[in-house]
């Protein structure tokens, strides 16, 4: 895992500015939540990290290395999408082994990694299944295992819980949150759901209109919002919400 720096990144598409001078630091092992309304530039920020968008200006650094102009396949970044985007022409195990295979990891080690990850995610029995036969929660876990199998610099999660039912969401939130901290993964977690971000992330960046309004721990952002936008956006309607740090 690595330390990730986004240095004054701006991305324009024609006349519209999707991301406007965003700077963010993600420490090794930190989970940064990026929240904001749709169209605020959070997904473009994620795609810039993955290498699918080249910033109009600014730099992206992994551990001090400038990767701004490197193609996605050489960046070693794990991606988890809302749609999971599992390869339906392969079994669950082949999905998980795909990344290491592309990176030239030997067959034995690939198998071992896949086995480990699948049991860590509690789905070892699904290894030989066809992804099309899995439930939403199971697909989510396979997607996560596949992204983690390449031992990425950073894990990028793009609205991974959207579309799951509320009960499953609550359970997965807890499980995935625990897993990510346990594995010491550096992660960028993009969501429009502030409760999800507050529960799963070490710190939160609130974005609006292409700019970062505030970065801080969930508690900081909640208790001392930097702007009226932030205070409005993070206002919780969850009465007995517990912050990750455990303090009352």
């Amino acid at each position, binding site marked *: 895992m690595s330390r990730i720096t986004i240095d004054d990144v701006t991305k324009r598409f024609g006349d519209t500015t999707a991301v406007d001078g965003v700077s963010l630091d993600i420490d090794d092992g930190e989970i940064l939540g990026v929240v904001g309304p749709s169209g605020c530039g959070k997904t473009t920020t994620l795609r810039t990290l*993955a*290498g*699918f968008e080249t910033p109009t200006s600014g730099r992206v650094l992994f551990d001090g290395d400038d990767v701004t102009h490197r*193609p*996605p*396949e*050489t*960046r*070693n*970044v*794990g*991606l988890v*999408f809302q*749609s999971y*985007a599992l*390869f*339906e*022409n*392969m*079994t669950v195990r*082949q999905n998980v082994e*795909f*990344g290491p295979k*592309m*990176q030239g990891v030997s067959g034995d080690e690939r198998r071992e990694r896949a086995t480990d990850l699948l049991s860590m995610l509690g789905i070892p029995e699904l290894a030989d299944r*066809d992804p099309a036969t899995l439930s939403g929660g199971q697909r989510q876990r396979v997607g996560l295992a*596949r*992204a983690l199998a*390449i031992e990425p610099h950073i894990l*990028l999660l793009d609205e991974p819980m959207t579309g799951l039912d509320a009960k499953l969401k609550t359970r997965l939130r807890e499980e995935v949150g625990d897993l990510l901290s346990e594995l010491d993964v550096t992660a960028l977690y993009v969501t429009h759901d502030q409760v999800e971000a507050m529960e799963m992330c070490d710190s939160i960046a609130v974005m609006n209109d292409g700019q970062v309004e505030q970065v801080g721990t969930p508690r900081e952002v909640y208790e001392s919002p930097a702007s009226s936008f932030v205070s409005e956006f993070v206002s919780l309607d969850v009465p007995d919400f517990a912050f990750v740090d455990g303090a009352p």
Partner: protein
Amino acid sequence: MSARPDGQQSLSAAFGRPLVLAVFVLTLLFLVAPIVVTFVASFARDWTGVLPSGFVSVRHWERVLGFAAYQDAADYSLRLGEMLATLPRDPFAAFGKTPLFRSVFLALGGVAINLVVGVPIAYAVARYDFRGREWLNAIAVLPLAPGIILGIAFLRAYPELSGTDFGLIVGYSLLKAPFMVLAVQSSFEAMELRQLEESARSLGASWLRTFLVVVVPNAKRGIVSGAIICWALAAAEFNFSYVVYSRGARPLALFLKANISNSSFETTAAAVSVFFVLIAGVTLALQLLGNRGFATR
């Protein structure tokens, strides 16, 4: 469907379903009856009265397949007998002698071109936004010209291609390309193409590798059904074949036409039945091949 509390069935349960079923069954019967009659009649010795008689006779099949002579001198058969006789001496020439293999080969050629050209076009249209996208889509999807017009234009532009295998293959592929593009495109549009592709790229696969190992296999269903439709339509294409064909074994559509115009009903029935069997066989083969060929598990 559950009964209402007051014990009455809903309107759709009482009338809707039986009605849909009845329409379905009637349509099926209407469509299937000619095929069944034709198939049955092809095994009759003759059909001069109300009902065909003299079952089971394979005389007409023998004639059509080319194992027995036609009554008059002209030979509209598939010439399989001749092919088998030539086979030991000159295997390459043998297959060219029969309309059967020539047609299968020509139509497959058309399918091959459509796979190479149509799949990337469908992918580009489904995946990217670019200038001229709408135009490319329209050109690829609209059957631009009927076979007869394309055939005549073809002969004017490339007279040297008249009657050659290459000319027929290119013509079939042009005429049937829309069916391939449509089938594959709908397959691409049904999946989260961009996210699928980006997942593979982020996992370290190059663009080309992603396309070949992830994108194409995920569109398997569309590609297989596109290939089947293209093949069946190309094998049955009459107009273009009629205009462009000049020598060698007749394309199947012309073989059918020759029998319809010149043979007895029973012989024609056998010829048409051969065609049904062939279509069913190739469809099955492409389906199996498609499922096997893409299976990576």
